[in-house]
Every structure is written in C-alpha cells, then in structure tokens.
C-alpha cells in the first residue's frame, strides 16, 4: 500500500516537475512549491485519526527541482495545536523522514493541512482528517428495570381491596335491610 502511494506520489512529482521550470523561469517559485505540495508525498497513519491518538507523518523529500538530498525535515505543528517546529527522524529510506505526534485531546474534528519543510527546499503537505470523539457518555436506558415496581402485584392487591370493600358494603346493607324488614 505504502509502495503504491509512494509510486503515485513520485508520478505526481514528475508531472509537477514538468510544470515547474516554466514557473521558476517566470519567477513564481512559491507557486511551484505549492504544486509540489499538492502532489502529496506525505503518508499519514492513521488517517482519519482521533484526538489524543498517536499519528505518524512520513514524508518523501525527493524532488527533481529543489536541490538533491535533504538532511532534515520539520513538521509545522501550529495548525494541530502542537509545537511549531517538530523535527522529523530520518528513516531507513533515502530522503524519507518520519515523525510521530500525539494529537491534542481537545483538537476539533475536521481536516488539517500541516506543512512539512525539507532542508532541500521541498515543502510538502497532506490532509489529515480528525474524527469527532463524543465528549459526553451515551444515554442508553431510562432506568425502567432499576426502578419500575411490580405493578401486577399492586393491581391484584388493589382489586382484592376493592372486591372486599364492595362485598362488605353489600353484606352490611343486606343485614340492615333484613333487620328493618
């Protein structure tokens, strides 16, 4: 998967490289770098990520336009609510740098585009999606089984009381009736 991504990124870079010289000649160096950034040689795992989760950024600083091999790379953490300059570690692959950060627990859900600056002048960026995590526990019950009393028993009881009272009343009136008669 990574290899595929990297190959795709490289293909993107090549296309960008074809477009860039014209821009550089006409003095638009920064837009040229933006074109590089859009080809996204950045691999983010996991993506989407969640607040408070370790998230790894891997960047490939290779570029055919900006001078050769990078010796270091820095992740700009400001948009994520982290340090502005987060140094990245060189990986076993040439020109690849890796940094693992823990996203702040209060980071808002949404899409973030932190920049990565390579020492050879390449700027890269990629979209990190941050998933919403519920801040409030779910309400999954109304307490019926913890509170509801046995109304069947109560109903039978009340019916018995009613029956007793009614027959008692009948009994008394009949006696009085008979006594008078």
């Amino acid at each position, binding site marked *: 998967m990574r290899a595929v991504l990297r190959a795709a990124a490289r293909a993107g870079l090549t296309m960008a490289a074809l477009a860039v010289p014209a821009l550089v000649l006409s003095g638009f160096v920064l837009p040229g770098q933006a074109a590089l950034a859009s080809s996204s040689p950045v691999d983010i795992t996991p993506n989407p990520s969640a607040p408070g989760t370790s998230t790894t950024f891997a960047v490939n600083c290779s570029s055919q336009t900006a001078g050769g091999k990078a010796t270091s790379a820095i992740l700009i953490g400001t948009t994520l609510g982290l340090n502005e300059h987060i140094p990245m570690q060189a990986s076993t692959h040439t020109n690849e740098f890796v940094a693992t950060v823990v996203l702040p627990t209060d980071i808002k859900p949404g899409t973030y585009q932190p920049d990565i600056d390579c020492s050879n002048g390449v700027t890269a960026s990629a979209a990190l999606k941050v998933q919403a995590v519920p801040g*409030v526990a779910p309400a999954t019950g109304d307490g019926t089984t913890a509170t*509801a009393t046995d109304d069947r028993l109560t109903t039978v*009881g009340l019916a*018995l009381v009613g029956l007793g009272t009614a*027959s*008692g009343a009948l009994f008394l009136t009949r006696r009085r009736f008979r006594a008078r008669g």
Partner: protein
Amino acid sequence: MGILRKLCIALIVASIAGGVVLAFAGSHTLRWSPPPFPPRSEALPAAPDPPDQAARHRGRPSVADGPGYPPQPMGRSVPLSLAIPRIGVRAKIIPLGLQADGSPGVPPLTTPFVTSWYDPGPTPGSPGAAVIYGHVDSAAVGPAVFYDLGRLRTGNLVDVTLADRRTAVFRVYGAGLYLKTDFPSLGVYGYTRWPTLRLITCGGEFDRRTGHYLGNVVVFAEYVGQRG
C-alpha cells in the same frame, strides 16, 4: 349469627387485608432485577496482540488457528446487524453520529431492540475501534437489547454482518463499568491498529433525580476473522 355469615365476614376482612399487603408489596418490589454489570473500573483492559504477532510469540500457529490464519482486516462496509449468541442478542444496527450536546446518537427508546453504530468512526472489521450502542432498558418493554451486556466475559463471540454481506467476528477480551463523569473516551474511541469493537450500554446505579444511570458498561472485543 350463622356460621355462613361468620365465614362471609372472615372472607371480606381477609380479602381487604390481603389486598393491602399485596398492593404494598407490589409498590416496594422491583418488577425486573436491575441489569447485571461488570466490576467498576478505571483502567482499560489490555488489548491482546494482533493474531499475526500472537502466532509469532507462540512460535507456530496452532491447529485452532485454522487455514485462514492470520485473519486479514476488512475494508470499509457499513454494519447492518449484530448477533451475540452468549446472551441471545440478534439486533438491527442503524448508523448515527454526534448529537448537539456532544453525546453519540442512540436509537429512540421506543425501538429498544435496535442498536446504533457510531458512524464518524471506523466500520467493524476495519482498523480502528468501531463502537455500537444499545439500550439496557426502556419503559416500553423493560429489559432492552443490551440488558445482559454486563454478563459477557472474555472469549465470548460477537458477529457483525456488514452491507457487503460478510460477517466480521469479534472475541471479547474485557469488560468494565465506567462512571459517566469519568468516561474513558480516548481509550474507547481512539485508534487501534488491529480492528476492535466496543459494545456500550448504561449500567451501575440509577439516579432517579436525573433519570440517568451513573455509569456505562463497555465490552471490548478484537477482530478474529470473517465469515461469508
């Protein structure tokens, strides 16, 4: 006074007295027993190693691992239904997101046997923690779909059938009761490299004043493979 009359009086008195006793008892006994729940916990259960690493630790795959070992995580597919044989649950799953108050959506109490899946999160069987909620009880029926969730123990299996007609199988590796005021959101929803599942309902003491349970039962399960 004839014996018949005496018997009548006795019967009337007995029925009134018995009725009072029954009515009193009825208003003081719970109709259902309160839902079972695991011991109160503050920590999360340790997630087991992903199967490929577990096999490496053992040195060799066991016979029980079967031919499809190690299992591969699944792609994204929306969950449709849930089965937990140990507690006799078979339920429909509806996708729901966050509500305005910051709590996750749950099915209405009028459909107490439907569960909901937290749809901003991963689908069951793909990497990450998929979360499914169900009610513990409802005035409409008494015990609801996840009434017995607190009975689940390590090793019990949970099947989740997805829209692509495949079934993701999960094995429980822990359960706990967590206070709502101290709910371990990051541990429950945070990313897991291996696919995991969390089943959540309410539990613990019920607060009559607020009309809410004070805690949540959370069952933690790991993906062990797929069927179909």
